[in-house]
């Protein structure tokens, strides 16, 4: 038994870190702590999902927010216009994002390096333009949820509480998936693709398939998170659903924590969000928060380019087993 725990020590560490973020507001019972933890968990879930593609497979997606936005739109439409329950809408949001990733993967994962990165930006803009002109989704003005819908979930206060539990669940799920990918044969294939795609194919990895499934896996959870977040926000519109900026922030979080590791995106996302929160409300820095965070990022990227976890692994070889 203890051997098994030891074997999966790094998984317990990652799950523990997420649980810690989740339990903190439950202990304090403070609504603000809950809202703060929500944004941190959202960031962790998005960054960890992208890590499956970026960290393990080595494909940089600058438009990953498209899955978040699409999942959000599909989920929101089903709740608001079709009267579906939140649970089904979240599943549908995830499915829609997964389906889009599958179809896109067949087409654009043939591209490599910068070409793939550029194509993902194009996809994000194309989907945004489509939604802008798609009347059932409200076109450019989007949709707004009727406040009464929250009464089905015990009033708005309970709905926000429920959203928090769901985001905690989704984040734990993404960590499990990420760990499974990292330690499975499938994941080994992805790592091989990252190092040298041609060599991996020679060794028997069916690269197109593996890449497509990695893409789908990295898209499903952002779709579910999108459905949840926009339910909680009560409104959705193209500008809020597909911000290119969020894609870039996701990449930054992964780089901060250490790409290609399970724990890295958790630490990176939590660290980045905490820093942003601090700068945003601190009386001294609030007018210059973007400049300060830029300088901090510059320092981190210059001195620990492999991210926090990469640096720890290099500095303390003994803990390598713990930090994967």
């Amino acid at each position: 038994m203890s051997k098994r725990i030891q074997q999966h020590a790094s998984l317990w560490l990652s799950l523990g870190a997420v649980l810690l973020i989740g339990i903190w507001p439950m202990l304090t019972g403070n609504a603000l702590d809950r809202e703060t933890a929500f944004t941190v968990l959202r960031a962790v879930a998005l960054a960890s999902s992208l890590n499956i593609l970026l960290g393990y497979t080595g494909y940089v997606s600058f438009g990953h927010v498209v899955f978040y936005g699409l999942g959000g739109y599909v989920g929101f439409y089903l709740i608001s216009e079709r009267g579906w329950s939140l649970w089904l809408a979240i599943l549908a949001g995830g499915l829609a994002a997964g389906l889009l990733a599958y179809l896109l993967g067949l087409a654009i994962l043939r591209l490599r390096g910068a070409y793939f990165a550029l194509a993902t930006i194009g996809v994000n803009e194309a989907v945004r333009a489509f939604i802008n002109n798609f009347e059932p989704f409200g076109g450019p003005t989007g949709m707004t949820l009727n406040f009464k819908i929250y009464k089905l979930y015990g009033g708005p206060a309970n709905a926000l509480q429920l959203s928090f539990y769901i985001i905690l669940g989704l984040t734990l799920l993404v960590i499990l998936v990420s760990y499974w990918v990292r330690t499975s044969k499938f994941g080994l294939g992805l790592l091989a693709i990252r190092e040298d795609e041609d060599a991996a194919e020679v060794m028997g990895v069916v690269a197109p398939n593996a890449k497509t499934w990695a893409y789908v896996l990295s898209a499903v959870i952002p779709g579910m998170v999108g459905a949840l977040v926009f339910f909680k926000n009560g409104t959705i519109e193209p500008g809020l659903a597909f911000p290119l900026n969020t894609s870039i922030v996701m990449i930054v979080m992964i780089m901060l924590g250490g790409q290609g590791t399970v724990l890295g995106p958790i630490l990176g996302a939590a660290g980045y969000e905490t820093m942003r929160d601090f700068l945003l409300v601190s009386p001294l820095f609030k007018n210059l928060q973007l400049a300060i965070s830029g300088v901090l990022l510059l320092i981190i990227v210059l001195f620990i380019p492999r991210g926090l976890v990469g640096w720890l692994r290099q500095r303390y070889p003994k803990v390598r087993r713990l930090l994967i």
Partner: protein
Amino acid sequence: MRRKLYLFLGLLVLASLVLVGCQSTSSEATSAPSSGGNEAEVTQAPAEATQAPAEASEAPEAKEVTVTIGFTQSQTGKYNEESSSQTQGLELWVKQVNDQGGIKLSDGTVVKFKTVYYDDESTGDKVQQLYTRLITEDNADFLISPYSSGLTSMAAVVSEQYGKIMLATGAASDSIYTKGYERVYQIYTPASRYLTGAVDLLKSLDPNLKKVAFVYENSKFSQAVVGAAKDYAEQQGYEVVLFEGYDPGTTDFGAFINKIADSGAEAVMGGGHFQDGSTFARQLYEKQLDIKYLALLVAPADNGFSELGDAAKNVVGPSQWEPSANYSPESAKAAGLAWFGPTSAEFAKAYEDAYGETPSYHAAGGYAAGLVLQKAIMDADSVDPDKVKAALDNMDLLIFFGHIKFDTSEDAHGLQIGHEMVYVQWQDKDGKLVKEVVWPKEGATAAPVYPLR
């Protein structure tokens, strides 16, 4: 090499810290102090700011309470300009009220105000978190909405569940107010009534004209505006002979102008944004189309519209507020409404003195939100949220921004039903084009010129 790098980074950090220092002092200099700013010069104050209700003088003890107004401002991102003007307007109001000694309630309590605000970065990521912070940590008593309808609906989910009153300025969409919120109050005229006043104006000018054409940009905003205006025009007995949208970015309106000519329309309404609206107006002029009335969205309200020269002459357009809008105690009397606060000219002058620029309608909206809150607290004679809500529900008055009255029905609670867009017209004054407010009558600076040419 490494040492040089450290040195460089050290300098970078130092420089950014210095910048932070400069920024915080400069922001204090440009924006009015939020509370206790008694040392600053007294600017034009709202007329009734110090006027206590009748019983006030009898109350012996003077207790002072400071009411916190919380909101997020888009200090960065795409809404920065509009949102900053809005905050400046609000801050000006706070300063004036506090300088005048606050609001005196009948039990002797003196109410003063302070603001707390954070940057929402023009995105929805943090809006709910920041509004929760404003309510639970900063103990905000009243809230002002962020700029834009999208961010406002997000904030409303939080403000409603804590029972906080939120005055929404900068959020014109109708949809927020038809979603069951009970404590969100809209200051702006909703999108569905952007052009209806232009129909009323036309009716007052020429009761015999019957044929109207709508040509508008194919964007959701213009569609919402024009769709509502069309329904209204039909109710008023007009025959809509043409209802046609053009793609955003259209530069040749020849085909549409021919269609207008074929339809026999005597009045044309529509447009979209500045660029297409001005092009449309110019080409209508060049083709010498025989129409009597032209009302376009957005473009005529912009000062750049006058560069069209003769093509801009007598074109009508809606605006939320204009510095020249002539709302005054006299016009309130004429309309049978109560008057409150400074006149447009007094507000515009105070704003120019404080910030050195002419106030935009976003700034006026911010100031108006404060003024409405002030009047509601005075009417309620309390800062208790339920009493202030009741006062807002009963509010029916004229301020420099226009008529303020809220829908109190269950379906559209808080929707603005009093405020009218003001309609400007570019009129030829001794060979020079001047923007005049021509509608509604209580705010007019000049009589409308009719027909178009």
